[in-house]
């Protein structure tokens, strides 16, 4: 299991849910304890050249597994596209082939067809951009192509869950890494507009495969003293009453 | 010389050859010749054109008489419409003299169903400015003159040697003011299309 740095530090429940869910579904899950971060915050800020240490650490931690599963679309995408390690390039390449975001792992590898989860609430699904347009875990609205959605497929298996429609199904939330502070005004506005879309359609929870998006939306919801909460898909798929 | 400088820089910097794509699949996919007339009518009308299916020139004359007051300046490129000024006799005049033209009536033999466009070259126009400076434009076309898409349109045009040509798909228009569509910008305020059955 590859747990994003901020999930490890601020949203451990999502990682716990991921672990429990994978074990429930029959996987032998190991969490390499010396993992830290995928390096994306630096790379996306233009400092890819500083990620060597991070990359080496990642390769050391994650070599030798059948699969590497991560409850985050953006971190998974970053590893898939940017993991290189001097002197360990073969291992890095192997890892890039085996890294999966959680919902794509559940649908494409484990081929999950049913879940025992219950979550009787109205839920808005936020399609995080990296998972959507990068990993293609769902069909993006820009393309003229067959619609599909791996997260939605899984959420459909949850008892009592009602997915709310949205006005804009895949507009970006505005987090964007350091963008959220460098372009604070636009970032906050983008987040507010996404929140408004979910709230106006009656969502009680906003979920996503990416906690970076949720962290940003939660910041806005709590500032608005809203009753609407955020929750990672892993926690819903692992949820029992 | 800038020409040499630019070409040298381009030649030096351009990447190695990427071949042109094969367009066969696309051309075949789009070459669907059913319902062309109906498709053209729907799309041209949606774009603001007035489309009439007519059995002959008498019908056209009647419609034009209804739509346009007597005494306005009308120039027509069709000798069947003998009531109007014949474009051939005035086409060499300075374009500015057409500033008071109310209606221009032209003829074409190529229309595109997918987007409501009609292809006219300066041969069909007489004078290039005529289909733009007139307050209204009308074009006569035959019912069998339509092709499905722009791909087939350019196949039809082939290597024709025109000095100027334009695909005209409707009345002039703009949505520059708060995305409000306004028909009638700098070109004609209306386009009437007469399809000869």
């Amino acid at each position, binding site marked *: 299991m590859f*747990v994003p740095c901020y999930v490890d530090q601020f949203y451990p429940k999502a990682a716990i849910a991921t672990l429990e869910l994978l074990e429930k579904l029959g996987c032998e899950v190991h969490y390499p304890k010396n993992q830290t971060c995928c390096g994306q915050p630096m790379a996306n800020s233009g400092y890819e050249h500083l990620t060597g240490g991070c990359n080496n650490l990642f390769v050391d931690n994650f070599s030798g597994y059948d699969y590497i599963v991560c409850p985050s679309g953006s971190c998974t995408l970053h590893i898939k596209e940017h993991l290189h390690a001097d002197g360990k390039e073969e291992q890095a390449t192997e890892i890039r082939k085996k890294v999966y975001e959680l919902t794509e792992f559940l649908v494409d590898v484990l081929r999950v067809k049913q879940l025992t989860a219950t979550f009787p609430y109205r839920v808005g699904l936020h399609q995080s951009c990296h998972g959507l347009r990068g990993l293609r875990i769902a069909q993006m609205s820009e393309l003229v192509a067959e619609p599909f959605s791996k997260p939605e497929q899984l959420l459909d298996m949850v008892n009592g869950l009602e997915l709310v429609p949205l006005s804009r199904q895949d507009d970006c939330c505005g987090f964007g890494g350091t963008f959220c502070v460098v372009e604070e005004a636009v970032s906050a506005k983008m987040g507010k507009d996404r929140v408004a879309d979910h709230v106006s359609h009656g969502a009680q929870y906003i979920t996503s495969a990416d906690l970076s998006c949720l962290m940003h939306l939660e910041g806005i919801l709590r500032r608005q003293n809203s009753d609407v909460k955020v929750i990672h898909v892993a926690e819903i798929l692992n949820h029992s009453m | 010389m800038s020409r040499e400088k630019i070409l040298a820089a381009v030649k*030096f910097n351009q990447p190695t050859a990427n071949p042109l794509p094969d367009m066969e699949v696309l051309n075949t996919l789009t070459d669907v010749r059913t319902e062309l007339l109906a498709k053209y009518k729907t799309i041209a009308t949606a774009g603001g054109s007035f489309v009439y299916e007519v059995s002959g020139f008498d019908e056209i004359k009647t419609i034009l008489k209804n739509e346009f007051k007597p005494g306005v300046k009308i120039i027509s490129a069709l000798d069947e419409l003998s009531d109007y000024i014949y474009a051939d006799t005035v086409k060499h005049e300075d374009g500015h003299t057409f500033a008071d033209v109310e209606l221009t009536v032209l003829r074409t033999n190529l229309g595109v169903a997918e987007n409501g466009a009609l292809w006219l070259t300066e041969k069909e126009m007489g004078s290039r400015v005529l289909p733009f400076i007139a307050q209204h434009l009308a074009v006569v076309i035959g019912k069998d003159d339509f092709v499905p898409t722009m791909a087939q349109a350019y196949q039809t045009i082939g290597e024709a040697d025109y000095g100027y040509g334009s695909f005209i798909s409707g009345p002039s228009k703009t949505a520059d003011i708060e995305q409000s569509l306004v028909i009638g910008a700098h070109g004609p305020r209306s386009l009437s299309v007469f399809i000869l059955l």
Partner: protein
Amino acid sequence: MSTATTKDHPHLAAEFNRDEPRVNWHDETLWWVRAKRDIAAHKLPEWELLRETASQIKLNVLSNLSTYLEQFEANAIKNGIIVHWAADAAEHNQIVHNLLEQRGITKMVKSKSMLTEECHLNEYLKEQGIDVIDSDLGERIVQLANEPPSHIVLPCIHKKKEEIGDIFHEHLGSAKGESDPKILTETARQHLREVFLTRRAALTGVNFAVAETGEFVICTNEGNADMGAHLAEIHIASMGIEKIIPERKHLGVFLRLLTRSATGQPITTYSSHFSKPQDGTEIHIVIVDNGRSIQLGREEFRNSLKCIRCGACMNTCPVYRKSGGHSYHTAVAGPIGSILAPNLDMKKYADLPFASTLCGSCSNVCPVKIDIHDQLYKWRQVIVKEGYSPKTKTMAMKAMALTLASPTLYRMGGKTGRLVFKYAPFAVNNKLNPWYNQREMPKAPDESFGEWYAKRKGAKNS
């Protein structure tokens, strides 16, 4: 024209965001144009094949550009068109000025050309005593307002009809308070008709220049390019070197994609093909480089030159929609502008590749499949390497890199951070923390996942 601003995108975007209802209006208007594009694209089942075909044609163009440029020139000359070459913006402006001065012309009518915005042609000609009137309605409006256009296809998308009404009342004599688009457009029609009928020179842009035949194509809805060109003694057409397409039949691909991507229409009202000058008149083409050949040499960024200037990337970009074209302080704004501008002046435009969340929407609406969001990421690396990133940011990033490369430092840092959040929230919940401006900080849990896992493993092993 307004003077160049030294403020960067974050500042200008913050100013734009002070008026939230206006941001909502701007955002919704542009999203609507994106939605119209979606409807038009979905009507063509072959849409994605069209995009791929267009992309490959443009890749071929870039790899053979020098040959195609020479071929285009030769064929244009054969047809009686006079061809000029301008290495940069200054030379372009001088060429245009000379052509007018030689003929004693002091008034010109212009139809839309973003290239001439890039070259600041209007300002230059004004200084030489030549009056230029922009004939595209949107461009005329921003010209009267003394502003640059904010969008390459919808020049005054940032202006409300009441504001336009005020501008027309002041400059064109329309009634005070009149804001009906029909009446304002009629006012502009009358005013510009006079301009078309009296000006001896017309300058246009070029949408596509066909190497095979030497003809060029101009697409408008208003008919202003044709009105200007056909009534003028001299028609000057300005084009960037990248506007070339190989063969006439390729227009059958690009003209199907351009307007659907731009406005959702199947085609513009007029797609005019110019081959030869009318008897007694002249057509001059000015082929402009202005940094394009340099971009062509940048392996990671050359594909930005495939652009056919449809504006779809701007309509879809949430940052553009919520910050406005003027926040980019460059002629061509939005996502495409952000990968073109750093090539022109890396220092001045270092902020633009960071004005994005890398959401990728732009790349997927682009009719010629430019990998815009990938190029934004790559420009960030270049800009940092060239030293255009603030020192404080570099220091912070180096500290982050060190911490994240060491499991011990990471765990310590994480635990300390959580303790600060819990026991000294004022340290982060204050005005110095930009996040805190409009968002709450995340709550700090008592233990990290790593700590929980270690405990659980310990419990299992005991």
